[in-house]
C-alpha cells in the first residue's frame, strides 16, 4: 500500500538524517529517487530549489511535496507525519534523559563519528545533482554532450558564493536568470 510505503520511507529519512540542513538530502535521494522513483532527479533538484526559497526544513518540504504528488492531501499528511515521528520520539526521549542526568557523552561520541560520514554523503548527493545539471537525466557522461552553459553558471555561482559571499538564495536566483538569458539569446 502506497501510504504505508511513503510513511515508512519518510520515517527512515527522519530517523537517519543526523546533523540538520543538508544531511537529509542523501536520504531523500536514496528513498524517493533511487528506491521508489517517486521523483526524477530533475524534480528532486527543483524540490531543493523550492525548499531553499521557502521556510521550513528540506525533509518536511520533501515529505509534503512527494506526499501530495503521490497520494494527494492524505499522502502529504501521512508522509509528513512519518518524517516527524522519529524526531518526536527521540528528541523527547533525549530531552527527558538530559533533564534527568544532564550528561550525554556516548551520544556526542556517536555524532563525532557520524559527522565525517554525513559530509561525504552530502557530497555524493551534490555530485548526482551536478551530473543531472551538466548532462541531463540518465544521459551518459560524455564530453561532447556537456551542457557548457550550465557548467559556466555553476562556476560563476561558486565564485559568487565563495569570493563575493552572496547569500545562497540570491545566487540561485541569479543562476536561474543567467540560464534564461542564455536560452533567450539563442542557446
Amino acid at each position, binding site marked *: 500500500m502506497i501510504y504505508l510505503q511513503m510513511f515508512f520511507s519518510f520515517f527512515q529519512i527522519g530517523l537517519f538524517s543526523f546533523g540538520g540542513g543538508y544531511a*537529509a538530502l*542523501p536520504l531523500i535521494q536514496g528513498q524517493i529517487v533511487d528506491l521508489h522513483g517517486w521523483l526524477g532527479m530533475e524534480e528532486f533538484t527543483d524540490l531543493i*530549489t523550492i525548499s531553499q526559497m521557502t521556510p521550513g526544513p528540506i525533509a518536511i518540504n520533501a515529505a509534503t511535496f512527494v506526499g501530495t504528488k503521490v497520494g494527494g*492531501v492524505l499522502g502529504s499528511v501521512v508522509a509528513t507525519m512519518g518524517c516527524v515521528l522519529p524526531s518526536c520520539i527521540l528528541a523527547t526521549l533525549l530531552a527527558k534523559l538530559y533533564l534527568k542526568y544532564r550528561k550525554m557523552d556516548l551520544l556526542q561520541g*556517536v555524532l563525532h563519528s557520524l559527522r565525517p560520514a554525513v559530509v561525504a554523503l552530502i557530497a555524493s548527493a551534490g555530485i548526482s545533482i551536478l551530473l543531472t545539471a551538466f548532462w541531463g537525466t540518465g544521459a551518459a557522461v560524455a564530453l561532447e554532450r556537456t551542457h557548457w552553459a550550465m557548467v559556466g553558471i555553476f562556476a560563476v555561482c561558486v565564485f559568487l558564493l565563495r569570493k563575493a559571499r552572496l547569500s545562497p538564495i540570491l*545566487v540561485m536566483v541569479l543562476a536561474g536568470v543567467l540560464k534564461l538569458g542564455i536560452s533567450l539569446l539563442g542557446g
Partner: protein
Amino acid sequence: MKEKNGALLWKLFFSTFYLSAFTFGGGYVIITLMKKKFVDGYHWIEEEEMLDLTAIAQSAPGPIAVNGSIVVGYKLLGLRGALVAVLGTVLPPFLIISLVSVFYSAFRENYVIGQLLEGMQAGVGAVIASVVYDMAAGVVKEKNPASLAIMAAAFGAACLLEVNVVLVILACGLLGVARTLWNRRTRV
C-alpha cells in the same frame, strides 16, 4: 510562569508557528531565533539550559528546527508542549509546499520558469558544493585520521559503490559507539 497552561500552550503554538513561517536559512538560524524569543524575550528557559537543549536538538536525528521546538516544548509543558510545538513548526512549511505542489506542474511547463528552474539546478549544485567544502574543511582541520578515513570510506561507499545511505550511517554510528566505549576504557 504564572499563566495558565492553556494560555501558555497557545503562546507556544503561535511562537513556533511564527518562527517557522518566517525563518529562511535552515535549522541553525531558527535555533538562534528560538533562543532570542524563549530565553531573552519570554524568560521561559535559562540561557545555560538552552545551550544544552540546542545540543540535544542537533544530536537527535531529523530536522533541527523540529527537534528544537520539541525539546523546548517538552521542557516547558511536557509531552503536550512538545506536540503543540511540533504542530506549530510543521504547519507553515506543510501549507506552503502543499500550495506549491498544486501549481508545480503548470509552473514547470512554462518556458520562462522552466529555464529559471533549470539554471537554478547549477545554482543548487554550487550551494551544496560550497557547503560540503566548508564542512569537509572542518573535518580535515581536526587532523584526526579516523575521521578522515570515515569520510573517505563513506564517500566511496555512497558515490562509487552506491551502497544504501542508511547502511552507511548505521555503520558509522556503530563505529562511533565502539570508539567512545574504547576511549572510555583507555581513559580509566
